[in-house]
């Protein structure tokens, strides 16, 4: 009946008349070999060995896993070294107590509280940013101006190619769609009005804001999140410098300045994109330009600029905010970058809708 010590690991159970279960283990236990599968029933279990050969931590781990829910798990018949390996895991379970898995209601409550505190943190960050601006205006904020000029370059000048491409394509698409409709009523000349007005009032600012969220917000969230991980923001606080003033203000300022300029650029490129389509078919360049200039009023131009200032602020703020509250891990930085883009784009669209209502009220 006894097993050779060189055999595969085995375990079998039998239940005695007095209700005791006996588990017999034996063979060679190795991390690379499949372990035996048994179901142990009963509150009182005695483990014995039979032909037990060499073993590594797979055997104490197996015993640890099978014995943890059994009231009396008697290992006294096992070799002393094996007993001590299993007991080490039991004894070492000290200090930090675990969290019980919360119920559905508790999970819902936790979600509610966390959402509330997330909004509270967002408003707190807006408050800190506003105070920082006020302190900067009176010359009391410690702002990293080297970052400001760097961000003018990276968030502004470096974004020109992608803004040009997307602006051109937006104008081109609008002209195509517009021409199809306007041809039906013989009013193709108004495609210039459509493209130029839409680009000036709406699409120039919106497209640039979305691009800023995609490339600038995510970059800010990653930068500030990484600084959080490496405790650089803590180091700033320890030096008496507010991270919002030192890190966020120059970034927000730079992007709020550059996005309107990029939006104006996108508007011109978009109008040019529309012209390429319009002049390829129905209109001459003179007709198109004359109509476009007539359509764009100073008010429309102002509407576009106001929107783009707001969108630039939102994009930069979303990145700085999500970065500053990022969890201190690689995953946390990734999440911060993603959520910065999502938050930025969502707020920009919401703000655009609000602008539409407000400008309508004021007849702008």
């Amino acid at each position: 009946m006894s097993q050779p010590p060189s055999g595969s690991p085995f375990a079998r159970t039998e239940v005695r008349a007095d209700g005791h279960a006996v588990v017999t283990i034996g063979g060679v236990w190795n991390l690379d070999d499949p372990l035996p599968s048994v179901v142990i029933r009963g509150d009182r279990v005695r483990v014995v060995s039979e032909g037990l050969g060499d073993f590594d931590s797979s055997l104490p781990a197996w015993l640890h896993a099978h014995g943890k829910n059994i009231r009396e798990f008697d290992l006294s018949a096992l070799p002393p070294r094996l007993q001590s390996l299993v007991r080490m895991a039991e004894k070492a379970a000290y200090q930090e107590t675990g969290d019980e898995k919360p119920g559905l209601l508790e999970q819902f409550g936790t979600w509610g509280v966390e959402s509330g505190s997330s909004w509270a943190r967002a408003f707190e960050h807006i408050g800190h940013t506003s105070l920082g601006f006020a302190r900067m205006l009176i010359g009391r904020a410690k702002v990293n101006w080297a970052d400001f000029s760097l961000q003018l370059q990276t968030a502004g000048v470096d974004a020109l190619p992608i803004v040009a491409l997307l602006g051109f394509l937006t104008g081109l698409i609008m002209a195509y769609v517009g021409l199809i409709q306007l041809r039906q009523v013989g009013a193709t000349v108004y495609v210039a009005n459509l493209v130029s007005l839409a680009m000036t009032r709406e699409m120039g600012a919106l497209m640039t804001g979305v691009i800023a969220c995609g490339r600038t917000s995510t970059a800010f969230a990653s930068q500030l999140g990484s600084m959080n991980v490496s405790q650089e923001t803590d180091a700033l606080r320890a030096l008496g410098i507010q991270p919002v003033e030192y890190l966020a203000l120059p970034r927000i300022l730079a992007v709020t300045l550059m996005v309107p300029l990029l939006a104006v650029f996108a508007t011109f490129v978009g109008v040019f994109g529309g012209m390429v389509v319009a002049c390829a078919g129905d209109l001459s360049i003179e007709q198109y330009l004359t109509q476009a200039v007539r359509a764009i009023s100073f008010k429309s131009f102002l509407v576009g600029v106001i929107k783009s200032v707001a969108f630039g602020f939102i994009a930069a703020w979303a990145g700085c905010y999500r970065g500053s509250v990022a969890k201190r891990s690689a995953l946390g930085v990734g999440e911060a970058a993603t959520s910065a883009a999502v938050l930025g784009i969502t707020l920009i669209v919401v703000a655009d809708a609000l602008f539409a209502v407000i400008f309508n009220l004021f007849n702008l």
Partner: protein
Amino acid sequence: MSDPTDIVSCADLAIGHGRKVIMDRLSFALPAGRILAIVGPSGCGKSTLMRALGGLDAPLGGSARLLGVDLATADEPARQEILRRSGFLFQGAALFSSLTLRENIEMPMREFLRCPAKEIRQLAEYKLALVGLADAMDKLPSEISGGMAKRAGIARAMALDPRVIFLDEPSAGLDPMSSGRLDELILRLREAFGTTVVLVSHEIPSILRTADFCIYLDPETGTMGAYGPPKSFLQAGQPPKVHAFFTQARID
């Protein structure tokens, strides 16, 4: 000098950063199941020596053998096999921040073992229970204390039942109680699994408690200043610098 049964040994070893040699003429051997502490002033090359012994960095001269194999000249499969049978705890624990403690321990098991997921889970839970983290398995590294992170790092180093583990300043940044518990854990693991331990430390009381052998690196001579049982360094007749380093640290 080297015995085939030695777990770690080196002969005329030179180590450094880039091409710059910071320590040379290092020769010693560590038998199985023993604990070796590497000590010396800051910046003398303790961690660099440990990395060279563990096969993470190539030596600049001489040879270092781990489990009887010179990792600098071994082919890749042999090297991988030896590295699999050794474990590392880095100074900051170096836990994967996006994984829970359990997933951190399971990761090397998933890569190297052919067991089903259930058995890997059992093993990981056992290893975490061994280091007293049975109740913190589903926490992320960012949610635990420095001492817990060190213990989780040891559990990960022990994941594949290594024959030797390298611990880089395991007690650094811990309070005396946590540091004492970590020493106990190292001794218990050595006793239970027969694991050989190489550790870098500045904590003289901890070294006296745990280490069987100690190597003192002397930055002035650029080589080892002494090698032997750490308690012997406290006695008279030792090189004055070594004696002073140990007794001064003890007084401090």
